[in-house]
């Protein structure tokens, strides 16, 4: 007997609509799955049993009265804990916000609720989304459902682990340098970063404002597209929000890739990529060619410098964004004899080592006398990355690469060496610098039984073609909604 917790959004929605499944049943199955897995996974920081149950009951009652609230009616959704939720603790994975209860919902959360979603809880992350493994969480790491001795990736590791394990049907993540796509890749689920400005950042606790973007994590490409349709849209509360048309992102699913031009990024699909990952990547590329895509190799010379530029721009912005955590108005306060001492003590006690490192790095990069050499230079590289992409998209419709150079690594194996951790994001960072969309789709399993992700990138606002190619990759890969061993029994496989 399979659990409703393992249904896709499309399946669950059909069941709910047809009366074969109630929102309460679905939610309880989700809670049961969390009970089964959370002790090992620690995907959640907060599970909101009470309000979720009330919302599920309300969803069932609404439906009994003939009211279908929206496309996510009754669907259990998890929220990365760097998006604020009214009256529900939001920590951004940091001790500096322990116990902080926001007075308002992030715009993306409001959109989910308006579409009928049930908010299950808040998922674990690297502190302030800074990291690639969730090991930088101020509340302990999450584990990978495929092998609980390994990391789920990060920073949206809790969201990816929850979706993979079935303790959420879909989840929101945020992606500053790969924080949706990389954990999706490591957990064997779909993770999508939209074009910068497509989803409002209002209520997303900022890490690097010019790079941050909220996006969906789901078990299928179609579910990701459906979720994006709900959360994308112009928001007058975000001055960087896109003001144009928002199409239906599922419109081209199932169209195949015949005639589409697919560019393999040379710099991201050779040296530095684990052979098993590369092999699975090549097979997926071959399947696209078999599907009629015109595959070519494309060189983006600036990729080499993107990582360095990112590790100047993101810390620079975070050094200002995190200045507000000073102990004055909310969150942790450690007393001192003066205001300055109180703030210094609060920050020293509240921030973990990686956050501290990046604040220092960013402060340095913006300092008088260093600005031009560091921040200024990094912005020039960013311009080059954008130009490289623009040039590439003159010749191809999408670019592809592995999502992560490696599969899930052992907990603790990279924490002592920040640089080796930073390298994990080498394939995903360029899209953030360019503000363009990217998606990770699972395409295979390595020898250790760990998922391998395939990344598709598209030009700004190219979400329709992105999902179109992603759906074909998903279809051709025979991944077939494969589930982690730890939930197989419950899944009924």
């Amino acid at each position: 007997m399979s659990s409703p917790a393992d249904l896709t959004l499309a399946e669950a929605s059909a069941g709910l609509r047809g009366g074969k499944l109630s929102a309460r049943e679905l939610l309880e199955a989700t809670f049961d799955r969390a009970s089964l897995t959370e002790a090992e996974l620690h995907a959640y920081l907060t599970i909101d049993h009470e309000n979720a149950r009330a919302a599920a009951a309300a969803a069932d009652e609404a439906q009994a009265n003939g009211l279908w609230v929206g496309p996510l009616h009754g669907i259990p959704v998890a929220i990365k804990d760097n998006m604020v939720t009214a009256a529900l603790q939001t920590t951004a994975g940091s001790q500096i916000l322990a116990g902080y209860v926001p007075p308002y919902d992030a715009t993306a959360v409001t959109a989910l609720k308006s579409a009928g979603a049930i908010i299950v809880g808040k998922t674990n992350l690297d502190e302030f989304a800074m990291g690639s493994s969730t090991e930088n969480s101020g509340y302990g790491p999450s584990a990978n459902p495929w092998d609980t001795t390994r990391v789920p990736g990060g920073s949206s590791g809790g969201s990816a682990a929850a979706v993979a394990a079935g303790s959420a049907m879909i989840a929101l993540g945020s992606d500053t340098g790969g924080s949706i796509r990389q954990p999706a890749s490591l957990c064997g689920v779909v993770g999508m970063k939209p074009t910068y400005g497509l989803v409002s950042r209002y209520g997303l606790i900022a890490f690097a404002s010019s790079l941050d973007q909220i996006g969906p994590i789901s078990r299928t490409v179609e579910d990701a597209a459906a979720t994006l349709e709900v959360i994308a849209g112009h928001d007058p509360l975000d001055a960087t929000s896109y003001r144009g048309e928002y199409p239906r992102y599922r419109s081209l699913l199932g169209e195949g890739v015949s005639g589409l031009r697919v560019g393999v990024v040379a710099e991201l699909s050779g040296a530095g990529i684990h052979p098993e990952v590369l092999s699975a990547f090549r097979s997926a590329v071959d399947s696209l060619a078999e599907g009629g895509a015109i595959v070519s190799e494309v060189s983006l010379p600036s990729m080499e410098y993107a990582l360095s530029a990112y590790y100047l721009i993101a810390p620079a912005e975070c050094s200002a964004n995190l200045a507000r955590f000073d102990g004055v108005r909310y969150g942790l306060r450690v007393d001192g004899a003066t205001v300055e001492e109180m703030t210094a003590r609060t920050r020293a006690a509240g921030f973990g080592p990686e956050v501290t490192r990046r604040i220092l790095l960013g402060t340095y990069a913006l300092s008088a006398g260093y600005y031009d050499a560091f921040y200024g230079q990094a912005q020039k590289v960013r311009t080059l990355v954008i130009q490289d992409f623009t040039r590439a998209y003159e010749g191809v419709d999408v670019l592809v690469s592995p999502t992560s150079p490696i599969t899930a690594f052992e907990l603790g194996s990279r924490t002592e060496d920040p640089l080796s951790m930073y390298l994990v994001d080498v394939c995903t960072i360029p899209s953030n610098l360019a503000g363009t969309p990217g998606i990770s789709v699972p395409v295979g399993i390595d020898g250790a039984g760990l998922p391998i992700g395939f990344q598709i990138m598209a030009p700004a606002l190219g979400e329709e073609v992105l999902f179109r190619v992603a759906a074909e990759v998903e279809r051709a890969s025979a991944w077939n909604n494969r589930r982690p061993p730890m939930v197989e029994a419950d899944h009924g496989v």
Partner: protein
Amino acid sequence: MEYEAVIGIETHVELATASKMFCGCPAQFGADPNTNVCPVCLGLPGALPVPNEQAIEWIVAIGLALDCEIAHRSQFHRKNYFYADQPKNYQISQFDVPVCSGGRLDIEVAGVVSRVRINRVHMEEDTGKMIHVGGGGRIKDADHSLLDFNRSGVPLVEIVTEPDLSSPQQARAFAQELQTIVLALGVSDAKLEEGSMRFDGNVSIRPKGTQEMGTKVEVKNMNSFRSLERALAYEIERQTAALEAGEQVLQETRHWDEGAGVTGGMRSKEESSDYRYFPEPDLVPIEINDTRREAIRNALPELPAARRLRWAALGIDPASIAVLVAGGSDLAGVFDGAVAAGADPKTVANWLTGEVTAFLRRELVDLGATPLTGGYLFELERLYAAGDLSSTAAKQVLVGVLAGEGSPAEVAEERDLIQISDTGALATEIDRVLAEHPAAYQRLKEGDPKVVGFLVGQVMKVTAGKADPKVVSTMLRQKAED
């Protein structure tokens, strides 16, 4: 050695927009602490700024009034520094591309006109307010401090001059002229005492006739034109004394102490601050194309310089013009309205600079908050010109109108101030007075001019002051000749 001062002025103007710079909270002054606040102006996690378009229009208006270039595309920057009254610990401000740059303002001191170049006019947000409790209100000795974020995020325009001023008198003239412009534009209350307009001075001195700049000292905390002038004069004197004593002037920020009449050094730590400006990633550049700029230019009200010329041509004396110009657009509107209706400009100017200004100062209200209009002023002037109101009565009626008692005619009626200039009615009263004072009547008939004043006074007394003394006097003289 003789020294000369080099002075530049930085002015902060709080705009009187309905809402704050980056959120929808009311921007008004005087609400209960922390009532006009929201996630944005409290710097709560996740909140984002959205620029106030009205504020952008108004800073462009200020720039145009000061003959500035308006940037087609300008940029917000973050200015990073930790201070408890600043919720994000960075201020959204502007750095290398301000909205306005390169303007000028002409000022006049003792008949000499000089030009002050404007370096830049940029947009930023105000901070909250800290109130230190205990220890004489100073942060260093305070027992604790309270924070009020009502002011946090109020739109603030900073106007920076080139160091073109050379005396405290010029600095004061500049500050006053700038205030009249801001008031004429109607973009700010521009109240120094409430801090909605604040002036900081940058002062250095150098041997007279030399070109090299001396060490600059920033003087803050002057909340009246007089204290601006005094603080700068003190600072020039202090620096001169230091150099003459063979000491050096330190580059620092000094606070003006109004009570003690001196400037004092602040924390030296602040001097080394590095604000680490970088482009504000939460905001897109401000775009002002030629069409938008010209639309704002065409909507500019008449500026003080033009007003002065026009009113001088009406025969108004310079002192009255100065008061009228200082009154801003409301006062100018009432004056022009009355004159356009046909009132005598000098009479109306006298009332506005006298009774009206005194009333506003006494009652602490703005002209806009009173019922006085150009129409009412014209009506009053007609009553006065027709002799229905004495000069004194007209002023009483004016106060009544300001106080909301009604139109001039209604107030005159209600307060029973209409003069008796009807000769028939007055003849009866005069006859009665002459009958009661036969000796005086006799002297009048003998042609004693001194008795006329006494008799007019008696008539005024029996008519309770309502008789027109000029008419009574004329009638008495005729009586003497009869």
